[in-house]
């Protein structure tokens, strides 16, 4: 099957719009075959994940495209960069690593990308509209854009994201098309107590369960409370896109393509119906932790994905309610974007958070920039995504817990558990 190209697509492929556009279009056309697409379509916005991980080949790719005159043709935001651009020296990042990371950042900004440097682009500048066709990378951002915003993107990986941004085109396929956004699997929360549904740790744990249950299906969740917050949906999507490949979920009466169950399934029947039980969540939570209660902690990591302003507010409340100070042998690191940080600086929350000893790291992530000490053995997090990847990527044991548990553990210097309605 071959893909039908527009005149402009053909010109790009022939090199008439420059060599960078030729390379971008060549990759996009090959991807169209992978997707079984018969034509291409426009996108009006992109988010680049290819700037996040520093590898020799990724740097070479970005610098090659940039040197060939690559220039984005649609508004394009950038994911985390492997460096806190202002404080990397204080964080002990080696010069050689930083030099390459700065080259990577420059290659992408030289191509006209907007230096947002965040894995939560939906909580800052240029949030996509409902129904907008976009090309987004970063698994959690993809899940959020599709599910919570109702924008339309496939799971775009490094480095087709920049290709789509340069060409302004993607294969017409997958989640760009309404019929492919139909729910497939129904998950019912009727058996879960309301007190559990408002607990912060429920959403990442449920996301972890969801990703494992149906790695590449579109789940429809029935019974989610109307008061669920954007941060909770963010946590759910990030976890489900780590334990699985979930790119779109619907939540009835919560997300914009699921005003009713019928709308979520586009009038069809679910392929499978699953009643979620408390035991599923208890099992998920237990699986997310590899460290035992009482284990000595080296660090608590929050902000995976990047902390929102609201999450700083909740952190400040948790700090206030402990009434205790940070354990001296432990680091409490919060990862965030410049956009959320700017709001924090203008609020009254900054003083209590900084006074407690929180290290705020901007533009980057503990997985992609060498911020954690190589001696670190055990960390704790409230993020399902961080808990999923930490043992492999950081070589540490991890404890997953609620934000309150994380803060309390940070004062104790060891993993603490609290009584919760479902543990």
């Amino acid at each position, binding site marked *: 099957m071959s893909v039908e190209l527009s005149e402009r697509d053909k010109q790009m492929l022939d090199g008439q719009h420059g060599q960078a556009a030729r*390379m971008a279009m*060549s*990759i996009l056309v*090959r*991807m169209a075959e*992978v*997707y079984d697409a018969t034509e291409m379509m426009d996108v009006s916005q992109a988010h680049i*994940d*290819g700037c*996040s*991980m520093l*590898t*020799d*080949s*990724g740097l*070479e*790719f970005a610098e*090659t495209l940039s040197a060939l005159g690559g220039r984005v043709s649609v508004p394009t935001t950038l994911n985390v960069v492997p460096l806190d651009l202002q404080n990397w020296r204080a964080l002990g990042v080696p010069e050689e690593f930083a030099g390459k990371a700065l080259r990577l950042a420059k290659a992408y900004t030289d191509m006209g990308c907007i230096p947002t440097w965040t894995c939560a682009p939906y909580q800052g500048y240029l949030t996509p509209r409902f129904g907008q066709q976009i090309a987004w*990378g*970063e*698994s959690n951002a*993809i899940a959020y854009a599709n599910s919570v915003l109702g924008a339309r993107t*496939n*799971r*775009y*990986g*490094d*480095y*087709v*994201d920049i290709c789509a941004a340069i060409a302004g085109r993607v294969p017409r396929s997958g989640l760009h098309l309404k019929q492919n956004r139909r729910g497939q699997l129904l998950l019912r929360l009727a058996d879960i107590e309301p007190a559990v549904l408002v607990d912060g740790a429920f959403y990442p744990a449920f996301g972890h369960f969801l*990703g494992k249950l149906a*790695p*590449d299906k579109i789940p429809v969740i029935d019974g989610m409370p109307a008061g669920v917050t954007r941060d909770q949906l963010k946590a759910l999507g990030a976890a489900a*896109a*780590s*334990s*699985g*490949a979930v790119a779109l979920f619907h939540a009835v009466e919560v997300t914009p393509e699921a005003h009713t169950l019928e709308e979520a399934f586009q009038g069809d029947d679910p392929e499978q119906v699953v009643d979620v039980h408390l035991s599923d969540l208890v099992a998920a939570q237990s*699986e997310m932790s*590899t460290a035992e209660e009482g284990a000595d902690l080296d660090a608590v990591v929050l902000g995976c994905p990047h902390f929102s302003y609201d999450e700083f507010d909740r952190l400040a409340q948790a700090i206030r309610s402990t009434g205790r100070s940070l354990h001296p042998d432990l680091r409490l690191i919060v990862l965030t974007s410049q956009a959320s940080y700017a709001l924090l600086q203008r609020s009254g929350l900054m003083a209590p958070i900084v006074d407690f000893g929180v290290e705020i790291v901007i533009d980057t992530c503990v*997985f992609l920039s060498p911020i954690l000490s190589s001696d670190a053995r055990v960390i704790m997090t409230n993020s399902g995504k961080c808990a*999923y*990847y930490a*043992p*492999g*990527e950081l070589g540490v044991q991890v404890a997953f817990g609620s934000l309150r548990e994380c803060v309390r553990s940070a004062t104790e210097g060891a993993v603490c558990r609290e009584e919760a309605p479902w543990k």
Partner: protein
Amino acid sequence: MEITLIGRPVVAGSAEGIALVSGQPLSFWGGLSPHTGEIIDRRHERSGAVVTGKVFVFPQGKGSSTASAVLMECINAGTAPAAIINRSVDPILALGAIVADEMYHRSVPVVVLSQEDFDLIQEGDHLVIEPDGRVRITKRDEVQSASISD
């Protein structure tokens, strides 16, 4: 005896190697080290196995959209599997192989098999992948007896 399966060549190419088989999906980022080719997802059933030079047979990718970058870096660093066989198309893995081909004219074939054919491949089988998506299998016990008689 040799068995020939007909797959879909998602990224076409020739390769051969011993099968490393898993029934679980894997995110290459956070799941595979481009430095060593080791499976580092500590929750994965094949954690610790090295994919370099093997035909890596697993259902599908998952997780991070950086998986394509990891595959390209594996190809660049010489730690990549010889080929990838999946049960369903994972565009992110295909992408890593395609971008590596564009950059370095070097790649890893990716073939998708039906569930039934996928299940015929066992750990240790010797596999030959053809550009048209054919997968020729020499079963493990025959691979072993051939190497003994050598």
